[in-house]
């Protein structure tokens, strides 16, 4: 495996971006609200360093073993981030909002079935079974994570649950990245692991770097404090109260 200068630059940029985001999450105390996300970003930093060291100084077989072990941990942690976001959004009072858990698990379950079925639709061009399974596995994980984030977004929107700035930033950045990742893995399943592999991976990395930059800025900034009521809104509410009082008086008169 030979890496071009661009590959190495993107690898280094990913490492620096993840390290800066990790530092922002720690220094600004965001890890308290997003512990799993913080662990995931810290894991990405450690994984990049470890894999780069193994790529340079270790054998290909050990590199592959560590790579696949890290990939499975990555998948587990990404599921953890979905769960973390779902808990933040759908448990504003500390308990699940009525209907939210049911909808989340119902649609999430349907998503798992769909994500499991989709990779079996296609037969990726690969020289051996391991190659086929690799492409299918990647497609499964990106489709599943995309679906689960979609379910969280859709459920919270339908139930009228508001998002505060940090969780909104996490969802938006992740959404853009995971949608692109899903299409990249879909194209890998068509072209195989040889044709256009590098170009497609570069696209995925560019988008991830964009998401990293967005997260660094958003997680560094404080969420706006609960604002006092504005004068315009005060006027609206007072007018509303007057109308309500009138309506209630009328209602009492009719009873």
């Amino acid at each position, binding site marked *: 495996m030979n890496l071009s200068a661009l590959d190495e630059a993107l690898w280094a940029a990913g490492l620096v971006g993840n390290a800066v985001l990790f530092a922002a999450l720690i220094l600004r105390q965001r890890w308290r609200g997003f512990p799993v996300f913080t662990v995931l970003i810290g894991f990405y930093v450690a994984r990049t360093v470890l894999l780069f060291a193994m790529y340079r100084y270790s054998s290909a077989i050990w590199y592959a073993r560590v790579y696949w072990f890290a990939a499975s941990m990555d998948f587990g942690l990404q599921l953890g981030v979905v769960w973390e976001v779902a808990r933040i959004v759908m448990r504003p009072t500390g308990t699940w909002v009525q209907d939210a858990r049911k909808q989340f698990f119902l649609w999430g379950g349907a998503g798992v079935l769909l994500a499991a079925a989709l990779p079996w639709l296609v*037969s990726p061009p690969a020289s051996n079974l391991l190659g086929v399974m690799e492409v299918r596995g990647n497609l499964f994980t990106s489709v599943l994570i995309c679906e689960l984030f979609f379910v969280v977004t859709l459920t919270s929107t339908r*139930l009228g649950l508001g998002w505060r700035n940090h969780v909104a930033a996490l969802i938006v950045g992740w959404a853009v990245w995971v949608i692109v990742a899903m*299409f990249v893995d879909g194209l890998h399943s068509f072209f195989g692991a040889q044709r256009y592999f590098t170009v497609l991976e570069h696209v995925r990395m560019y988008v991830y770097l964009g998401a990293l930059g967005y997260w660094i800025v958003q997680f560094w900034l404080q969420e706006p404090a609960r*604002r006092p009521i504005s004068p315009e809104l005060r006027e609206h509410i007072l007018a509303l109260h007057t109308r309500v009082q009138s309506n209630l008086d009328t209602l009492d008169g009719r009873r």
Partner: protein
Amino acid sequence: MTAVQPYFVLGVLLFALGAAFASALWSSMKQRQRSWPDLVAELEPVDFESVGVVASDYLNPMAGQISMEPEEMWRLVGGYDGLKKMCRNARVMLQLAAYAQRWNFEEGVIVHERMRRDASSLYHAVRCVELGMIRRNLLGRFNFTLPFSVHEAACAYYLMRQRLLALYETSHAGLYPTLAASL
């Protein structure tokens, strides 16, 4: 050679998922950015006095509590159009309650949850009414549960509205007496 048809299906499904996700995200971001006057402007006029009469008949039973006829109830809630308006207003009211969390989080979040439960009852009651109407139109049979559903819908809407107004009133306990005194 790679068979193209499965990839076409895969491409369509991935595109549909990506587009649905992007659309849900867009709706959610738009919902976050809407101002209070924008939300209030979305409320549709509902004859609350009439809805209140139906709700009071159910919530405060008195002697002769079954005197209100189903036809009267149906007329007071504005028929099917009135029920659909209530459902649409309920969605806006939920967003107004969520908006109040910006300055009164503790109470806002609990009232919001209570209102969501009311909204759930409202949607359920309206779905029952819709099913009853389908049954009546197809089979010509009157559904005896229909008046109960209308009662439940009116009560849920009444409670949602009262909870929302009480939430906003609590946020302005200091201001309201001044206004009342000056009027």
